[in-house]
């Protein structure tokens, strides 16, 4: 009888006994890892630092666009090396929190607080995305006694095609970002077959001033009605101070053309851009305007009183506020707008942001108007995060107190 004894195989390391991880699991593990969270938050800190330094040369608006609302950002300004911008970083952080903090985490009683906190953070990031994608903001500047219902963008331009029929104005717009690059190089055509003409925009200037073309003046720019646009250095630090301009050629379907100069001269409330380049085609009068993007409030606001208090002995404002009357339908009511106390109505928020003085010495109040669907979301997110943290650490504290009491009884 032969007995055969099989050799016992050597024990495998515990890790090797685990079922092999799929690629998807590995990727999910990496994307949802705590390490990635830390790296992403550190990277956001770096972007914040770079964006802050960039404001030595750029306006806050441009720095925000270039570093936080972009897919890539320059590591050093003026050099070609680019690094991921705020947009992919925050998307990555959102995915990281969603996968690591919501999907992969064990949904247990002890993790309720952590889950709630992660939901709050996700809501915070979501609010940022909604604001980035769908919000608008602009300025409404009023003298005392003036009533306003229109607010205009701080930095963004549009060309508006307007026509008037009695007490109604019909306007169609094209944002500058849709044509500026083409109008800088050559002709940017804006066309709609339903209209009896096409519009070509050219010689786009981000900052310019109109000048009269006299016999002693030489210029490479087109001259229309004895006037041409002269380029002015773009103010990168205070972009809202730039006045854009370009030329427009209206070509009728029959071939006739109309030439005009468009200049975004507007400095509300003192100067309002309300005089379009006028032309008539097929008996209909049209106007073309280059203006700051313009929106209308569903209500109107009258500035009753602007108040500014200075620190004693200085011209530095201690605080400033606006007493306004809101008109909506046949209802009116007074509101005081001051720092951290905006007017909220019909999806719009009016903040007290600034003030100024017109050339004739009159003071005016400048309100920022924001229409942001996620306006209150950050506040709600903070409440959610607070509830999550209180829940989590409260539970920990109770557990600790309980164990201490048990230790004392033992």
């Amino acid at each position, binding site marked *: 009888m032969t007995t055969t004894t099989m050799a016992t195989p050597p024990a495998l390391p515990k890790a090797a006994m685990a079922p092999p991880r799929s690629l998807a699991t590995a990727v999910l593990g990496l994307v949802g890892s705590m390490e990635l969270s830390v790296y992403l938050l550190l990277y956001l800190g770096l972007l914040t630092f770079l964006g802050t330094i960039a404001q030595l040369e750029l306006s806050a608006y441009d720095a925000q666009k270039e570093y936080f609302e972009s897919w890539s950002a320059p590591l050093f300004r003026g050099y070609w090396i680019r690094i991921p911008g705020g947009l992919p970083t925050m998307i990555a952080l959102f995915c990281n929190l969603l996968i690591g903090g919501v999907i992969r985490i064990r949904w247990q009683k002890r993790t309720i607080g952590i889950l709630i906190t992660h939901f709050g953070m996700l809501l915070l990031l979501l609010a940022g995305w909604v604001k980035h994608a769908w919000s608008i903001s602009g300025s409404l500047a009023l003298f005392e006694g003036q009533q306003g219902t229109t607010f205009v963008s701080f930095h963004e331009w549009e060309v508006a*095609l307007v026509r008037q029929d009695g*007490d109604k104005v019909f*306007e169609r717009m094209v944002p500058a970002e849709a044509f500026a*690059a083409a109008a800088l190089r050559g002709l940017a055509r804006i066309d709609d077959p339903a209209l009896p003409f096409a519009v070509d925009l050219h010689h786009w200037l981000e900052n310019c001033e109109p000048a009269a073309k006299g016999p002693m003046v030489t210029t490479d720019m087109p001259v229309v009605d004895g006037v041409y646009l002269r380029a002015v250095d773009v103010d990168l630090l205070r972009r809202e101070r730039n006045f854009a301009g370009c030329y427009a050629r209206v070509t009728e379907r029959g071939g006739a053309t109309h030439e005009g100069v468009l200049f975004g001269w507007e400095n509300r409330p003192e100067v309002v851009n*309300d005089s*379009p380049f*006028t032309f008539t085609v097929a008996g209909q009068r049209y106007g073309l305007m280059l203006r700051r993007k313009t929106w209308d409030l569903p209500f109107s606001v009258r500035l009753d009183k602007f108040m500014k208090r200075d620190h004693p002995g200085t011209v530095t404002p201690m605080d400033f506020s606006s007493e306004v009357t809101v008109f909506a339908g046949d209802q009116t009511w007074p509101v005081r707008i001051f720092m951290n106390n905006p007017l909220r109505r019909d999806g719009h928020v009016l903040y007290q942001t600034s003030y100024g*003085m*017109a050339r004739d010495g009159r003071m005016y109040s400048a309100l920022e108007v924001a229409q942001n669907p996620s306006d209150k979301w950050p506040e709600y997110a903070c409440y959610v995060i607070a509830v999550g943290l209180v829940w989590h650490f409260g539970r920990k504290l109770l557990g600790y107190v309980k164990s201490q009491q048990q230790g004392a009884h033992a």
Partner: protein
Amino acid sequence: MMLRSLLPNVPFLALLAACGDSASTWSAEREVAAEKRNLQWDVSTRNRLGLPEMGGATPQPAADDAKAWTGTLPSGWEALPPEPARFRHALWRVAGQPDTECYLTVGVGGGLRQNAQRWYGQFGQTMPDTAAMAALPAITLLGKAGHLIEFAGTYSSGPVPREGFAALLAFTVAGDRVDSVKFTGPQPVVAAHRQAFLDLVASIRVDTAPKAPTADHAGPAPTAPAPSQYEIAVPAGWAPVAGSSRDLHYKIGEQTEFYLSGMGGDLRPMLDIWRSEMGQGPIDEAGLAALPKVSLLGTEAVVLDQTGDFTSMTGRKLAAAQSLVVAGKQGAAITFVKCVGPAAEVAPQREAILQAIATIRRKG
């Protein structure tokens, strides 16, 4: 691998991205109440682009300046020689009331809005909406239908705001050209002469004998502007600017101007305006605190001394300029002395200018 396959396409993709589609289309049509836009149609290119404000006064048609205008002189009034350079194509005042002024301005550009905003602003008021403007009392001026505006309050159209003033303003509009007759003075005087003003407005006409002195223009001989309420000791060589409406207005050298003026409001925004004329941004706290201080009319004033390319609020440009401004708060207003000219002219005179400023006194 995938990256390697994509690399050869990068130049093409970049070109595609750079070229893009240069044709765009309009958004959907949006309907807006006309009063929200208040569009000014058929405005000339110059006025539409703000050239009257940015490049100096609207050029008047030569025919307007060549014409003479007259009206039936009300009892107790006197006619003064016209000053077309100051947009006073005909000029009158109440006899014995040097604070009053009534003048005709013909064909000024800018349209109703820009002119009316200025008129209302001079009394600290805001231009009402189009409907309210259309509802103003009717007048006839030079054969055209127009309206009358009446103001009362503090009149801020000079170096010093004048309280208790009133104005009657008759105007007509044709396209972007505005004709107006403006009568200003102390409230009781203006109220007492309201009907006389309206009669004068109705009687204004083109003078058929423009060069000959008429009975209506049989006023005093050309006179110097109203005497300044200030005095100053200036170095030899400074030339008073004849006929200027500004106080202590001198010409230094070929191009440098020196004058005293005033304006309502706070100091800091004005400093920012003067800095912006030299291409500078707003002044910060440290910069404000660091400005040298001198005495102006008995109060502390800051000295803003800048060199560079100058562009005035009216668009006047001067390369390699020096702007020396001394400004101080006088109650609710700012009083300032401004001296602007080529740096080559101002710099050698800087100390003399500051010494002259130190001598400015109110008369009496």
